[in-house]
């Protein structure tokens, strides 16, 4: 089918183009709102700046296609093959991208707000500055896995309020990203880069952040119970009012971090670097601080009841008004 023939048919009211072979068809700038391309072969097509809202591309092959600036809002893009596709600056808001393969695709600056990305494969995808507000990528109990974002580049992406529970973000780059109010429960962020990321009010309980880099990240009031931050870098991070009960922070680097009123009850802080950290009124009940480095740390008013601190380095630490492991209060 030629592009002209397709456009003519569409203009005459025909919208069903399902199951067709439209390989390399040139439809840039076309208005095809509401059309049905499900199951079609659209490999290497050109749909730059096309109007495609409310279209149906279910199970379509769009591998290597050029889709820059196209408007796919509310489109059904589930189970599509978008591998190596160029979706730069696309409007994909409220689209259904469930179980689509977007690995190594370019989604730079795309609008994915409210999109359904459950089970989508996005490993190695370029998602810089994308808007993913309220997007759903969570892992479902009934066979639908969370989105696969391993090694994806999400620098400066806006994920405010997105659901990323159980998502695989291993080695992903989230530097400078907005993760405010995001849900990352049980997500795998091993070796992820989160430098300067904003995680205020984020829900991250049971997340795995082994060797993640969170230097300068804002984690104010974040819920991080049982989170695994072993060997993670949290230098200059802000964890004020955050909850990290039962968290694993062994060998993590929290030097110069701000952790006033943080809850670290029963947390594991073996060999953790807490040099010059601000732990004012922090709760460290039954925390393990074996060989932790607390030199220069400010622990005024902290609660250390039954905490293990006997082997910690404490030169220059300020414990004024702190409740010590034996229950006594430091002058």
């Amino acid at each position, binding site marked *: 089918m030629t592009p002209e023939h397709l456009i003519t048919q569409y203009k005459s009211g025909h919208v069903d183009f399902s199951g067709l072979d439209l390989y390399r068809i040139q439809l840039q700038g076309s208005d095809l709102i509401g059309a049905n391309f499900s199951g079609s072969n659209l490999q290497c097509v050109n749909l730059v700046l096309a109007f495609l809202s409310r279209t149906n591309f279910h199970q379509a092959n769009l591998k290597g296609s050029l889709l820059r600036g196209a408007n796919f809002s509310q489109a059904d893009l589930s189970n599509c093959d978008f591998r190596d596709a160029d979706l730069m600056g696309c*409007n994909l808001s409220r689209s259904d991208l469930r179980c689509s393969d977007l690995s190594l695709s370019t989604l730079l600056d795309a609008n994915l707000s409210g999109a359904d990305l459950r089970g989508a494969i996005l490993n190695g995808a370029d998602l810089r500055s994308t808007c993913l507000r309220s997007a759903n990528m969570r892992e479902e109990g009934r066979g639908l896995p969370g989105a696969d974002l391993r090694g994806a580049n999400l620098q*400066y992406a806006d994920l405010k309020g997105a659901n990323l529970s159980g998502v695989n973000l291993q080695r992903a*780059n989230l*530097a400078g990203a907005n993760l405010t109010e995001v849900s990352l429960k049980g997500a795998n962020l091993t070796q992820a880069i989160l430098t*300067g990321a904003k995680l205020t009010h984020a829900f991250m309980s049971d997340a795995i952040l082994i060797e993640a880099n969170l230097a300068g990240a804002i984690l104010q009031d974040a819920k991080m119970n049982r989170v695994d931050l072993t060997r993670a870098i949290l230098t200059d991070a*802000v964890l*004020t009012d955050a909850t990290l009960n039962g968290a694993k922070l062994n060998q993590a680097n929290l030097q110069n971090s701000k952790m006033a009123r943080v809850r670290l009850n029963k947390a594991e802080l073996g060999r953790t670097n807490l040099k010059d950290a601000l732990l004012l009124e922090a709760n460290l009940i039954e925390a393990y601080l074996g060989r932790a480095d607390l030199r220069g740390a400010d622990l005024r008013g902290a609660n250390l009841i039954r905490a293990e601190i006997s082997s910690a380095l404490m030169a220059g630490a300020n414990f004024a008004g702190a409740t010590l492991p034996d229950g006594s209060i430091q002058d």
Partner: protein
Amino acid sequence: MQDAASTIARQLAQDEQATRIYKLLTYVSEGTWVGDISSPNEAMIYRVLSQLLEQFTDLTLLRSYIHTSVNTLSKPAEYSQIADLILEAIFSDRGGEDPTTTFLRVVSPPNPQVNPQTTLYSTIAAKLPQIPNQIRLKKLALCAARSIWEVDLARLEAISWVDLTKMIHQRHATHQELKKGLQQVVSQLSKPVEYSVLAETLIDNLQALYQVPIVQVPIVEVPTNAAQPNLTPSLTSNLNSSETESLVNFDEIRQDTHFPKPPDVIPPSQWSDDTGTSRVETIDSEMFDLHFDIMKLANPLRLKHLLLILVNGIEPKDAIEGMTLRQQSMIPLLATAFRLHRKPEILGIKLREIARKLPDTDEYETTIEAIMRAFKMRSASTSVSTTPKRMPFDESTIGISSLNR
């Protein structure tokens, strides 16, 4: 001195804890941990003991150093007793003071005969074996010291941390130089993420080479009026080159470097800057809200075209097809545009001028309207509060909002 070491070594070799004594002596004198050793003989103990006694003619300093080293071990309680055994033998040989004081609070100024540089290397090197991923760490350190990427484990293990510390110090005159050197090495590796963590650890641990007084670390509590040793190493002084060359024969080490491919995970922007934090530009949270507001109506690609021309002043053709479209992402561009163009009316005129030079001029109008509306709203809200919010304890490190700069 040798006679004294010989007598002490004989005594220690006969002790039932001789193996642990030898391990600890090797650790404190050479910075390496001996794993498999069953029964060290007198000569072995003599060798490491004499090295240690040569380094420390001041016994108070020696005692402090040994206990500090013990505290870096995974079994400090057990080895504290071993340290006492060693010290007791040394002190009894000298007819000196009670050596069982295990917790020093004041350190005497070091004897001028002590080589501060050697002691510093040993102190730093003593900590490095405790860091996980020893093999990778050593590979990285060797590369920083000699630009050799060694994969032979036996050869790597043969190089002591003391030697590596010395070589790194010789090669990098300043801490900054070392940091840059390691960054360069990591950027060329196929696993930059893993190695960047280790590089930072190495940088942190070697910081003392460039600024920290030598015995600052060992002392747990030092009264403010206590005499502080002044042993800051000279940045310009070098060790005898023949001395370091004799430590390891680097000619035998393979010169092939294993830098398999260029970095594909961490761009240079991810590297740490001078302050140890990421170089990523700090973007105010409000910029994300502004972006979201614009995106409700604007086409993201057309928005990008306009911003690229507005901020970078590039040709329209380049904005649509050029590399900059991929290289730069929207959020930092938007933040710059907002900082530079605070008056929506003037901004509107500029954007319409830009649109006239672009194909499909009319298609940009919706996007321009969306930009102007969002900028107007945001400017109004920020003009109400012109001072940065300050919250207790935390905001000082977040940085002042770019809107208020």
